[in-house]
């Protein structure tokens, strides 16, 4: 009956309880929706980072990643790719050559990272070809080789399709090497920074310009069926190619790893802050409850209700109050998140985030276990909020409490 009394007690003061419930509902809705929004944003950043920039796993010569030294290439790259493609869980892999180069145009000079890719293989590993906004993706063999430039860089240097552009760099032998490329297309990813500092050419063209041996490559990018067994595949690759350095996207893109690792924690902290604010509202309400019901609590203890049961009754009231509002807020928040999982939220104010790789179109996402964890936090806050009022209740002297006006 204590459960029943506790539940009915909530509705003794309907206006007050409704206000608290609405506050908890709004607070939890805000917490859950924000969590789903930022989680969606983070997931998209990671997804686009993997699909567009780094793929799941990369293989390099040891130390290559320290300063992209062009002499740190590996041979037999084609055979390595074939062996990798035979592995379970691997969708595709692609060789790359990378170097730092200079772009010289009438409108300025830029230092950028030039990446030589094999178009057909690269299409299976990254989705740059899908991000083309103008021109073609390194198609065909041309007398003047084609180069793909990010839209942002193209706008800054006032480049057009077909513009010829000399690309300067230092080759394998330490000699200055300049080669003329023609703008073949512009791509636009969700990461403006990436677009501004990365250009793509065909693998063989860059190999030739750098004077690298046949079959040499700096990097092999590997795309997996999913992220779940990445550590297993990475381990197997490292066993297969002990002389090479095998790294996953978390190790390569530390900023991406930080996004996923920290986002969940930030979101829990955010929700906890909301709950703590609500906690004070609940404490206040429960203190009022104890104050208003002093006589009744005294009677309960006088007729033989143990203090532990009185304590439990107050705690239950607080839990019911918190959970009613909390679960309602979570359900509404979760419903809204589900809706925006397929329909993106487009916010112009997030355009600025594109420089950091975040899309201005956000598809929300909240794993059910996270919603359950938030419900668990609400439950805990319900208990914490009632501890002091319940303690005050059991400190009452029944004889005095009964005589309270």
């Amino acid at each position, binding site marked *: *009956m204590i459960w029943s009394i506790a539940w009915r007690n909530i509705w003794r003061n309907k206006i007050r309880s409704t206000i608290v419930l609405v506050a908890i509902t709004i607070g939890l809705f805000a917490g859950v929706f924000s969590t789903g929004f930022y989680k969606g944003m983070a997931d998209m950043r990671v997804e686009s980072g993997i699909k567009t920039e780094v793929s799941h796993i990369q293989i390099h010569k040891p130390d290559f990643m320290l300063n992209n030294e062009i002499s740190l290439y590996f041979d037999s790259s084609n055979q390595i790719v074939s062996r990798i493609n035979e592995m379970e869980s691997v969708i595709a892999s692609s060789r790359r050559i990378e170097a730092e180069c200079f772009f010289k145009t009438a409108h300025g000079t830029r230092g950028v990272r030039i990446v030589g890719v094999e178009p057909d293989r690269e299409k299976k590993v990254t989705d740059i070809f899908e991000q083309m906004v103008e021109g073609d993706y390194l198609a065909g063999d041309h007398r003047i080789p084609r180069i793909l430039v990010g839209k942002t860089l193209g706008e800054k240097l006032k480049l057009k399709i077909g513009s010829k552009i000399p690309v300067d760099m230092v080759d394998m032998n330490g000699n200055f090497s300049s080669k003329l490329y023609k703008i073949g297309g512009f791509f636009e990813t969700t990461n403006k920074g990436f677009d501004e500092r990365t250009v793509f050419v065909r693998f063989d063209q860059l190999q030739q310009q750098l004077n690298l041996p046949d079959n040499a490559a700096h990097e092999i990018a590997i795309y997996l069926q999913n992220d779940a067994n990445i550590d297993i595949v990475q381990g197997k690759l490292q066993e297969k190619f002990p002389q090479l350095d095998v790294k996953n996207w978390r190790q390569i893109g530390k900023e991406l790893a930080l996004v996923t690792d920290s986002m969940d924690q930030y979101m829990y902290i955010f929700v906890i802050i909301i709950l703590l604010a609500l906690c004070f509202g609940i404490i206040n309400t429960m203190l009022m409850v104890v104050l208003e019901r002093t006589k*009744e609590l005294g*009677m309960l203890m*006088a*007729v*033989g209700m143990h203090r532990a049961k009185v304590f439990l009754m107050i705690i239950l009231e607080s839990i019911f109050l918190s959970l009613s509002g909390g679960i309602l807020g979570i359900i509404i928040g979760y419903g809204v998140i589900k809706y925006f999982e397929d329909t993106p939220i487009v916010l112009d104010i997030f355009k600025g985030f594109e420089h950091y790789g975040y899309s201005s179109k956000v598809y929300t996402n909240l794993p059910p276990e996270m919603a359950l964890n938030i419900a668990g936090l609400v439950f805990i806050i319900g208990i914490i909020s009632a501890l002091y009022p319940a303690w005050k209740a059991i400190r009452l002297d029944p004889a005095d409490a*009964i*005589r309270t006006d």
Partner: protein
Amino acid sequence: MNILETKNLHKVYDETSVPVYAVNGIDLTIKKGEFTAIVGPSGSGKTTLLNMIGGLDRPTKGEIIVNNVKLNDLSSRKLTDFRLKNIGFVFQAYNLIPVLTAKENVEFIMQLQKRPKKERDKRTISLLEAVGLGDRVNSRPAKMSGGQQQRVAVTRAIASKPQFVLADEPTANLDSKSTENLLEIMEELNRKEQITFIFSTHDQRVVKKARRVITVDDGKIVKDETRDPEKD
């Protein structure tokens, strides 16, 4: 058969370093089936005496023995259990649980006593019918008159089959008709079921019905008379 006995009972409040003797050496014996009124002016010590008899307050000195159990020796937890099993309370302001119906208010005490549901249901209904509230079992206190609420409170007090019922100014908030009705019910319960009632009261209507009247003043029993109300 004595169901309650106090020996040299004292309660001293040490307020502002001047000791106040609320109860000052009361020796009292109550037998099963008594219908007793404790009277006295405000501040005479009758409420303090009632609180100590009911196990709500502890004496400074002296003994309280209920049904051969010395209350002084009981821990707070055991005292709560003792109250639940042995003492029924009726309060001036009824003190029903407003969110429960009349039936649930009565049943609540028996549930605390862990009585089986069947027994609870049966006893609750028969008691409420006995006090004339058979048609109000599902009414909440707010929907009942003061007299009806106090009848529910009396039912609640006797539902637990206590050794005695302590009623503190039970008629103070009631009109004459309700008071008369309530007193008739309590008298009948006393007569038929041998339930012991101890009242603390100023109400002469209650005093007139009592078969024993104990007058308290300055924390002492100044008069203890037994009488037959029908003859008076």
